[in-house]
């Protein structure tokens, strides 16, 4: 794509999210969402193919529906409160509709069906933007309306997301779908704690973004989109396999890596609020996630994958540059001792 056009489009995506996060007027927030949506469509279609077209169409349809639901909730809120300022939502119906709309934008169950298919149809870099940057805007709105969210709906969606994210990823070999299901599961963890302590949602979002960023960077470096092609990285760049191992185990939530920190804090917060069965259930279901990450590490770092000599020399037309990989790796694996610092997120 023409670099100037790409810059303008990326700026619009960025601006859209910033408008959502910084506005106090509901209409501006809706405008921000729409700007974001319209600008990200060309990015999703960077490599022009029918599959990418299908993916961006699906994305557009779900996000537009969600925006419309959001608009309806805003209007109901306007009707009952008489003002457009974003504080809390003044009507339970509006709150429910808004929660459902934002869940659709995030990809929570039962609105998760678009996430794997859209992520699969687009390139790795676009998938990266989809799974990390696009989650910031809806999450910030959820953060702001968190006092008035209906707990039952949110917790049901969260627990179901963790379940679906774990179970759905079990049968996948395509890396983008694996990351999509991982995103669904992590969104579930984030929204589960939203009503109790929104700071932890932000913490989880931060750590999740860092880990997903790292994973995608590693995938982009080896230009691999399937488990099979990822298993050939030992030949070209053996260090990358170690980094993949560490980051995947961190995503699975194994101590002492930093992926454990959000899970631990969330379990602690939920237990303090006297729900004991829920965090136990969530923690056990996160083991499903860990299973397919471990399976990925088995084929990548911990074993020599059987391959013919032809497959060992992958065509690599240009070396892909990984930006910022060392700090990302450190952030996604070694942050656990810094847990007391999460008070800065307040």
């Amino acid at each position, binding site marked *: 794509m023409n670099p100037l056009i790409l810059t303008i489009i990326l700026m619009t995506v960025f601006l859209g999210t910033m408008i959502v996060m910084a506005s106090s007027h509901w209409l501006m927030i809706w405008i921000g969402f729409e700007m974001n949506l319209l600008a990200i469509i060309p990015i999703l279609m960077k490599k022009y193919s029918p599959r990418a077209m299908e993916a961006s169409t699906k994305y557009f349809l779900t996000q537009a529906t969600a925006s419309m639901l959001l608009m309806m909730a805003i209007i109901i809120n306007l009707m009952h409160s008489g003002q457009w300022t974003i504080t809390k939502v003044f009507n339970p119906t509006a709150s429910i509709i808004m929660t459902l709309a934002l869940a659709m934008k995030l990809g929570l169950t039962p609105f998760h069906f678009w996430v794997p298919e859209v992520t699969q149809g687009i390139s790795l870099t676009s998938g990266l933007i989809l799974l990390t940057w696009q989650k910031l805007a809806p999450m910030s709105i959820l953060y702001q309306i968190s006092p008035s969210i209906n707990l039952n709906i949110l917790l049901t969606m969260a627990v179901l997301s963790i379940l679906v994210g774990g179970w759905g990823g079990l049968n996948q070999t395509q890396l983008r779908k694996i990351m999509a299901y991982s995103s669904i599961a992590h969104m579930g963890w984030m929204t589960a704690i939203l009503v109790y302590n929104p700071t932890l949602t932000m913490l989880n979002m931060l750590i999740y973004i860092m880990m997903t960023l790292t994973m995608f960077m590693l995938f982009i470096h080896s230009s691999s989109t399937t488990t099979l092609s990822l298993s050939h990285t030992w030949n070209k760049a053996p260090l990358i396999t170690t980094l993949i191992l560490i980051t995947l185990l961190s995503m699975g939530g*194994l101590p*002492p890596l930093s992926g454990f920190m959000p899970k631990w804090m969330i379990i*602690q917060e939920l237990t303090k609020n006297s729900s004991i069965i829920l965090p136990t259930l969530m923690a056990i279901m996160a083991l499903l996630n860990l299973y397919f990450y471990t399976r990925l590490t088995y084929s990548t770092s*911990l074993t020599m994958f059987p391959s013919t000599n032809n497959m060992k020399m992958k065509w690599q037309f240009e070396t892909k540059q990984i930006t910022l990989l060392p700090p990302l790796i450190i952030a996604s694996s070694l942050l656990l001792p810094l847990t007391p610092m999460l008070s800065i997120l307040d």
Partner: protein
Amino acid sequence: MLKIIIPTIMLMPLTWLSKKNMIWINTTTYSLLISLISLSLLNQPNNNSLNFSLMFFSDPLSAPLLVLTTWLLPLMLMASQHHLSKEPLIRKKLYITMLAMLQTFLIMTFTATELISFYILFEATLVPTLIIITRWGNQTERLNAGLYFLFYTLAGSLPLLVALISIQNLTGSLNFLLIQYWNQALPDSWSNIFLWLACMMAFMVKMPLYGLHLWLPKAHVEAPIAGSMVLAAILLKLGGYGMLRITMMLNPQTNFMAYPFLMLSLWGMIMTSSICLRQTDLKSLIAYSSVSHMALVIVAVLIQTPWSYMGATALMIAHGLTSSMLFCLANSNYERTHSRTMILARGLQTLLPLMAAWWLLASLTNLALPPSINLIGELFVVMSSFSWSNITIILMGANITITALYSLYMLITTQRGKYTHHINSIKPSFTRENALMALHMTPLLLLSLNPKIILGFTY
């Protein structure tokens, strides 16, 4: 405590910066020095624990386990030299780094005061062990073994995390030094029963309890020698150590909650001992014998009498050294014949008489021959379980007999009789191997002179 932890952490830069011909020498020497430092912890004041700081302490229960851990690292390094000799340098260094990392986590686990910190480090020991088993194991089944190991332990320990946090909410602090003094009876309710279960299941899986022991034979058999050694000697004892610490807070539910686990352990020790009599795989035999010995420890911990605690602690240390030694002996067989089948390498006494002496000593301590500390441990456990219920003497007696049977079976099959014709070209025993066995056996024999140090905090 930092005087032990920081040198162990620094073992990792040591391996990466050493020259090619010095890695083994450097790491083994320095880890031996570290174990020398840890010996000073055995000097415990009588009715108290040595509190080094808010975060680390060592009491008569954790000090022997700590000494065992630090003692085992040089032994693991010595045992791994042969099977890593053909690997590229970076992989050797990675292996040693994994071992050093595991060692660090284990030391910190045994000396942690805060129970959540104990939990995090307990889980953290899983990662290097998983990498060692899966990356350097020898057979295809190691993948399955690693998965079983990881998921059994995690599924058991996630409820433990929730339980620890809810206890922290109730009491305000999980610092072990405080809990000793806070101790109140746990009120009787259904949620406290689940609390008991949540606390104990993690350690039951780790020990392992008879019904949950499926991961152990897989993991022990598929792991390379250092992995087997550390698994058998230390990681199982993590479960026992955790149980000993946590049962302090869980009275009086333990009185009735312990019954199912006691039944499982009592029956399980007989079952696993009997299975040993039918094993063809040498490492599998030693793995099942570990389950059997650990079942005794579970019985001892759940009975909760002073003598049983003494027996549990002594048995843990004794079994650690014996089991590790048996795995080293099995490995010396494996390195020569590349097969774990017992009958393929029999009659070794004719070819390797000195190694046969070590086999004899190891088998004798495994069957708890007086005056070894194995006997002291088992005897205390048998006596305390007899006082708990007279009928258990039948099961205990049967267990001791069957243990003797399979230990002697293992000894006779591998050592006595006519050697097979295809092993008359094996290499003679290396000095390294003999040193390894001697270093295992010497503490075991010396401790029978002064078992007081391993008898734990109820002495």
